[in-house]
């Protein structure tokens, strides 16, 4: 898999004007978002989708820094958090909130997130690289620490809660139900995603890429690298803040965890997992991560271990993230040679998948054997219940892991060759 002849270059293709082809993904996405609640009707599914949508906005905002502007931030959560806290305070401001339609609320979050970014950005964006990363870490820690000290605004450990239903009803909707909140969030998701996408197509958005690639050259094109970064940073602060506003609407509570380093680290993980090189990368990352977090954590206590391993593997082998992996297949597709890959893929991926699942199974058995209560040797894995004292499951998972690895290794050269072939344009080279 890794032996690719064609390193994917995450070039930023800026499309032409408004074309049907350019619009199609958006329309499909919107249609999908509108239909989703009819497929998954339970409140918890909607809650998960809400969470996903908020994470998508946040991750896209983060990628304005990391992917578009080359700024690695360890403190992006504070902009979302502060925006969210402001929105909860607005909710609690009876006289004002009762005259305010709820869908407008995230704007306040956005403005305050932007305001904070304006202040911090004024000194942090002078440099990119490590200086920026360290300042973001320091500011992040400071604000997170303040959250337990400045109780008036952050509410201490228990945070601040509000009630979204006290806002001005919109067409008679009071946002009592999750489904109503879902459509509100979707509205903002589409709006924000479009806004961020279009931002990347503006002169300052384009120059953000230029500054990321080569700040010195950008300066000799008449642009101050610092101010280009600053504008991206402030814009990212706005979208992060509005994501915070949506968080406030969905959960009606903001706490210290919305600001802390762990949340900032998580969004880095989400974004990188999805892929920083493409606009849609963070969207994939947010979806996959939310599912991992909610579904996998229902299945296993070790979910964080798997997510950590997945993340490290992504950084090591697929620095383009999931989006990068998907986009790797565009050249073969264009050349009409994608079918060449199907068979080698099956030959490598099936044993590979077996190997991964078996390894996970082995780890689960080991974990159970080590940490389960004495006498509690019954465990269920992949719908099979057995005792960890029984050597058979150990042998089966261990054997499958080794066997799968061996098979995948054996077929890897074949895949590499097919990959090379699929990426070679015979017409050009002939």
């Amino acid at each position, binding site marked *: 898999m890794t032996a690719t002849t064609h390193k994917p*270059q995450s070039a930023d293709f800026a499309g032409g004007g408004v074309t049907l082809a350019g619009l199609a993904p958006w329309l499909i996405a919107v249609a999908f978002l509108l239909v989703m609640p009819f497929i998954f009707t339970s409140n918890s599914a909607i809650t998960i989708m809400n969470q996903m949508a908020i994470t998508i906005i946040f991750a896209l905002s983060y990628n304005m820094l990391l992917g578009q502007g080359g700024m690695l931030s360890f403190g992006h959560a504070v902009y979302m958090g502060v925006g969210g806290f402001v929105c909860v305070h607005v909710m609690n401001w009876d006289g004002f909130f009762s005259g305010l339609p709820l869908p407008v609320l995230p704007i306040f979050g956005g403005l305050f997130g932007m305001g904070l970014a304006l202040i911090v950005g004024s000194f942090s964006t002078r440099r990119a690289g490590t200086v920026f990363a360290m300042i973001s870490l320091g500011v992040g820690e400071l604000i997170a620490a303040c959250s337990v000290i400045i109780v008036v605004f952050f509410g201490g450990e228990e945070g601040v809660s509000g009630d979204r239903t006290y806002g001005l009803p919109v067409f008679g909707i009071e946002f009592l139900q999750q489904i109503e909140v879902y459509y509100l969030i979707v509205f903002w998701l589409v709006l924000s995603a479009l806004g961020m996408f279009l931002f990347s197509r503006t002169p300052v958005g384009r120059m953000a890429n230029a500054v990321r*690639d080569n700040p010195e050259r950008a300066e000799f094109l008449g642009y101050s690298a610092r101010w280009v970064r600053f504008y991206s940073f402030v814009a990212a602060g706005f979208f992060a803040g509005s994501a915070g506003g949506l968080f406030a609407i969905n959960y009606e509570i903001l706490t210290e965890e919305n600001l802390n380093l762990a949340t900032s680290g998580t969004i880095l993980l989400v974004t990188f997992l999805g892929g920083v090189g493409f606009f849609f990368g963070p969207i994939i990352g947010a979806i996959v991560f939310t599912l991992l977090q909610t579904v996998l954590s229902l299945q296993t206590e070790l979910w964080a271990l798997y997510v950590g391993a997945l993340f490290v593997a992504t950084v090591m082998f697929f620095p383009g993230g999931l989006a990068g992996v998907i986009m790797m297949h565009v050249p073969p597709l264009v050349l009409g040679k994608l079918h060449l890959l199907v068979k080698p893929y099956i030959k490598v991926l099936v044993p590979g998948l077996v190997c991964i699942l078996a390894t996970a199974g082995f780890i689960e058995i080991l974990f159970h054997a080590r940490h389960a209560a004495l006498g509690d040797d019954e465990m269920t894995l992949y719908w099979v219940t057995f005792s960890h004292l029984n050597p058979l499951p150990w042998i089966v998972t261990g054997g499958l892991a080794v066997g799968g690895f061996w098979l995948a290794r054996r077929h890897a050269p074949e895949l590499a060759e097919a990959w090379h072939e699929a990426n070679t344009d015979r017409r050009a080279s002939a």
Partner: protein
Amino acid sequence: MSAALEITNLRKSFGQAEIIRGVDLQIMPGERHAVIGPNGAGKSTLFNLITGRFPQTAGVIALHGHDLKGKAPFEINRMGLSRSFQITNIFPRMTVFENVRCSLLWSMGYRYSFWNMVARSQALTEGAEAVLEQINLQTRRDIPAGMLSYAEQRALEIGITIAGGADVIMLDEPTAGMSHSETDYIVELIREVTVGKTLVMVEHDMGVVFGLADRISVLVYGEIIASGTPEEVRGNPRVQEAYLGAALEADH
């Protein structure tokens, strides 16, 4: 007519060592001027002083009569001076077209706009296409610049440098590391794209500039030892001595 670029008694020291030792230079608008000299003469330092990459120790650099002292690179660029780099300095992850388009943004007045869509501007697209045509890279339009060949990257570098419409163009060893045929191609390209502009180029190889430059200055050990038309410079005994001396030293 006032000089496009005027340098008076320019000095630069790094610690104890004085690298530029009192350079005076006047370059008229529309002139193609080459600064040549052996290795270690201070050509690149001079270049970086003019473009604001290093601060000068003493002296004055004036662009169209405006002092450049203390100006950041982007400010100098906005005053109408554009430069290339000796080491290829493009935006490798962006497409060729994007590279050129970015270099047009400021001069077309977009500044830090976040309300215009670049793709919707006819002028931007046409301007970028025109530059691409000038540097013969239309066919490579949509591939990432980092995947171009070396000569193509140099051509793109020149394209980016001239695209902004600056009237003073500074090129730092544009043919460094190229084969003969590539060099000829780039020289021809430079000639075409700098018509009507002031060109200042730094070059190690004398042969490259003789056909191109109107005037040549020779920089040796931080001083201009000769300045004049190519013929004058070629005949100057001090120039001969400097280059031969350097060549002999290199032999040892």
